[in-house]
């Protein structure tokens, strides 16, 4: 029984860290700051949640505290990436030439 739980937890752990690795890869490959925020923080959020779930399978007696950590991450992560994106948009960071439409700059004039 315990070994079965351990194997499920290990598989969840590996899938979570795979998402972490993809988030790091996106951080390196994406061309501008908004796409880096997209690829970086959100893949790592899912990766951390999956890792927490996997360790919760391995050590069921810690599950309450792991749940609290997951809850904190779920509430604080979007806030920090939203604040960072808003700050970058308001200070007029250059976007990649592939950008098709920029409704914010159309409505507010050129921020720089």
């Amino acid at each position, binding site marked *: 029984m315990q070994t079965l739980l351990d194997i499920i937890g290990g598989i969840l752990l590996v899938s979570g860290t795979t998402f972490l690795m993809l988030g790091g890869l996106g951080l390196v490959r994406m061309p501008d700051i908004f796409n880096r925020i*997209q690829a970086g923080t959100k893949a790592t959020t899912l990766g951390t949640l999956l890792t927490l779930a996997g360790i919760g399978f391995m050590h069921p007696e810690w599950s309450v505290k792991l749940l609290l950590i997951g809850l904190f991450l779920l509430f604080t992560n979007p806030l920090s990436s*939203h604040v960072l994106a808003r700050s970058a948009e308001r200070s007029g960071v250059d976007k990649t030439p*592939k950008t098709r439409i920029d409704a914010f700059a159309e409505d507010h004039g050129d921020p720089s």
Partner: protein
Amino acid sequence: MIESMKAGTMTSERDSAKLFASLLIFWIMLNGTLAIDTLIIGVLACLAITYFFRDSLSYLTDFKMTPQAFVAAIKYFFFFLKELVVSNVRIARIVISPDLPINPGIVKVRTKLTSPMGRLLLANSITLTPGTLTVEIEDEWYYIHWVTADATDIEAATNKIVAGFECHLEVMYG
């Protein structure tokens, strides 16, 4: 006049009770024990926080305490988890493909929600599902950065991004 004042204090007391209950649950989860001394200290601390911050910490005030709202909350949570996994896989496929097929843009959408808490939850959900990122909120207009901007006008973008979350949040917060 008197009736409205009475109603005001009634709702304020209910909000304080909700705040106190959620803080106490949080304290018990953080300690992981139900020993009597821990519980007494927790009750004292939660009473103090509820007394001093009863006006500013009002994150539960707009939630409708009806059975439909609870069902919608559970449905919303599972829809959110499904959406999180699906769009993460989509972004992962973009990242590992060699020519990086992105098509970014900032689009403008509008929401029908009116309560501040519902709008906050909607913005957080949009930010947490990869591919879309809330850049700015102005009243009912959201500016959203989208990695694969398929639709550029307001109506189509609203249908694609917001509608799925909005139908659950509308039941919860009205």
